[in-house]
């Protein structure tokens, strides 16, 4: 339909040279052109947060951004967290607190929380709920997601205060 553009997306430290229409969403490019299908699409409308990725460290709804806008930025997705044999602390907390059922919303929540805790490690419990309220989960009723995230935030604070002590 329209002219395609050559761009480079950097996803989890790997470069992908791809050719996209200007209207192609970032989430479609990540999934279809870069083959990283861990980032999901729940609404394409900016509401559910299933497509949340980190762009230059900030949580972004990848369905609301065009791929061309993310060219030459650092994109991080769920595939860049821990692996099946070596889950990172946040992933492990989700497993231990049963914070996922179908798992469709999970990558979005993991990236949202990763971005927020990196930037605001001292975020309070109540603010954390406001953050989590920006993504939707239809299975868990949220209680276990909140527990898992609080546990990780707590451990991180603990680790830092031990390090500085």
């Amino acid at each position, binding site marked *: 339909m329209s002219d395609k553009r050559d761009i480079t997306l950097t996803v989890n430290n790997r470069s992908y040279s791809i050719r996209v229409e200007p209207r192609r969403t970032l989430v479609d490019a990540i999934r279809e052109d870069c083959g990283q299908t861990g980032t999901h699409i729940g609404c394409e409308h900016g509401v559910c947060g299933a497509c949340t990725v980190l762009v230059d460290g900030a949580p972004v709804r990848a369905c609301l951004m065009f791929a061309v806008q993310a060219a030459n930025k650092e994109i991080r997705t769920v595939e860049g967290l821990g692996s099946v044999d070596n889950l990172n602390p946040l992933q492990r907390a989700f497993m231990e607190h*049963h914070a996922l059922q179908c*798992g469709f919303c999970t990558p979005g929540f993991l990236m949202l929380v990763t971005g927020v805790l990196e930037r605001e490690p001292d975020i309070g419990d109540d603010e954390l709920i406001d953050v989590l*309220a*920006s993504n939707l989960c*239809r299975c*868990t*009723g949220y209680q*276990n*997601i909140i527990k898992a995230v609080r546990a990780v935030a707590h451990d991180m604070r603990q680790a830092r205060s031990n390090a500085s002590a």
Partner: protein
Amino acid sequence: MSGKLIGRSVTRLEDPPLLTGAGRFAADVSFPHQLHMRIVRSSYAHARLLAINTKQARALPGVYAVWTAGDVAHVPPIDFRLTRVDGLEHYRQHVLATDRLRYVGEPVAAVFADDPYVAEDAADLVEVDAEELTPLLRADQEPGEFAPARRTEPAIVHKEYGDVDAAFRAAHTVITLDLAIGRHSGVPLETRGAIARHDRARDVLELHGAAKVPHWNRDQIARMLGRAPASVQLYEGHVGGGFGIRGELYPEDLLVCVAALAFGRPVKWIEDRREHLIAANHSRQQTHHVHAAVDAAGRILAIDNAFFHDQGAYVRTHAATVPDLAAAMLPGPYRVPAYRAVGHIRLTNKTPCGTYRAPGRFESTFVRERVLDAIAAQLKIDPIEVRRRNLIGASEMPFRRPLDTLGTEIVLDSGDYARLLDRTLKAIQWDGVRQQLEARRRAGEFVGAGIALFVEKSGLGPFDQVHVTVDTSGAVEVVTGAASVGQGVETVIAQICGEVLGVNYTKIRVVHGQTDRIAHGLGAFASRVTVMTGEATRIAASKVRAKAIETAAELLQAPADALDIVDGRVVRAGVAVGPSIALGDIARALAPTANPRPREPGLSAEGWFHANHMTYPYGVHVAVVAIDRDTGAVGVERYLVAYDIGRAVNPMLVEGQIVGGFVQGLGGALFEEFLYDERGEPICVTFADYLMPSAREAPRTEVLITEDAPSPLNALGVKGAGEGGANAVGAALAAAIDDAIGRPGAVTQLPITPRRLRELLRES
């Protein structure tokens, strides 16, 4: 970890891939050279279809084909899976609309293109010419015309026992209520998806993205397309939430199959969210006009209920399931000596309906518990006491209710309802809660508490089949015809198999939803999997265990009854050291080529479990709410769900089911509603107008899982846990809100949105 596994909150086998982005959901399945399908949908609620112009769409570069009804004329309408009732068959949906358009969202044409963006562009170019007709939007109005000589009331569900009229003549008091439940649905976070591929080398039609009932859908697709079932295979990947709506056979599933056969290319369809909200099954919408005859002590003598079930534009796979369940389950945990339910199935020009978690029970529990509250208010008896006086006693179990549903007689298998009520009141400290609320009300706050009781059903048969195989590495594979919709089936089945077989559950692979791996399967619905598949697994694993021990006894020269299996090795029971043999080595000794040749090769067995009756878990919900007088918002301060499920295989997962179900129930009780304007145009077509609870709206939930009444119908005593969290939310919140505003019986309609609540507050 082997040994005791049943009853332990182990972490899930499902989690690692899902946590690392390795899941395979429908949209993640792709094949080389695939085409993308986009559906052109009716923008009319009711219209006569005059012409469809596809010329411009076909001319767009990248478009492969555009189909309308004529291209799929050989495909019959989609048939019923459950609760077939005579007369409904004329109201089934064709895969593409023929001469009438009956709801906004109805598939009218299908566009196939190389690229999904192009398919969408082309779909916008398809012109639909139609003559608008007046839509019928309410199920409780005079029926209209569905088609010439066909009314919009295809059938009536009628259930009755006892002498209802005599009971009303003898009544001390008659309660009359008009109640309504709003239209909402499961709305899983993953939209639907279907990818069909015709493997011409083997002449097998594959459908990926299947869920819930793959075997039934396989057989239906085969029948509809005139193929042998063995030449159609369905594959379930990860499923992003089911809740009743996903996995039923829909027009789009057939379209991708027919197209893949016709074009010789794989065809992929992924629904977008707007489509999902207008095209996937809606649920729940009913209005009830209920009468109850009671004696002076508040004991129910009879219930007489007439209700209108808004089925939407067509009768889909569930046929009469939802109204049938509503009618059959309405009496709940109470005696109700005489009963009549007349359920009018009515078609309207709205999205067709099917089941949603606790189908028919979310609705009828709201109705029944409103009746109990009304009895309490009218006779000035405490609401708890009224319920106690009507509860079926533990000594009356099993209790035969002269009704049937889903092809089974209702026999409440076990239960001590009064005991659970006591345990619930104790857990929440009911008297203390009441006193605190009283004090706060005196200080001017609008706070209140409500309670609701219910009986659920689970473990629908009639059968399940499971294969258990141990390979030469000692790994165990369980193959089942059940399905997973994200509820943790693999873990639960692995726990049961692992405990019986003496194997670490993490060594067990559970294969489900693959029609080419097992001949029969009923899938995942009606909270059936833990009960039916669990028991079939126990039976199969017991056989494998016996075979392993028998073989090991020969190899170890030891009596079989002195042997046990621990962590995947056959050992002498209770002896720390000594000869042992790994299950993998036993599998090797049983290989068909082994010497000596085994009597029956393979360390494997099949388990079948049959059940004619369902199991009936039961529960209590308690809500404490505070109402904001200005906004009409309901703050849920406390919520407790007590649920007796006989035996919990994995309490952590049961609790997860309960909390998740509760928050869905909360959505249906307070926020979620598919609204239409007067032309039948749907108003809630995005997540910005269809409001599901977020972490902000979801209160902390207290869960009390009890095991007072194991089911006598299976060896483990389990009952299903999937639906009790949702069942009574509308009922309990209605009671709590009545209490908070000091007006018994004020709430007659769900959802109780802020606007409706402000109206109630103005009236008082």
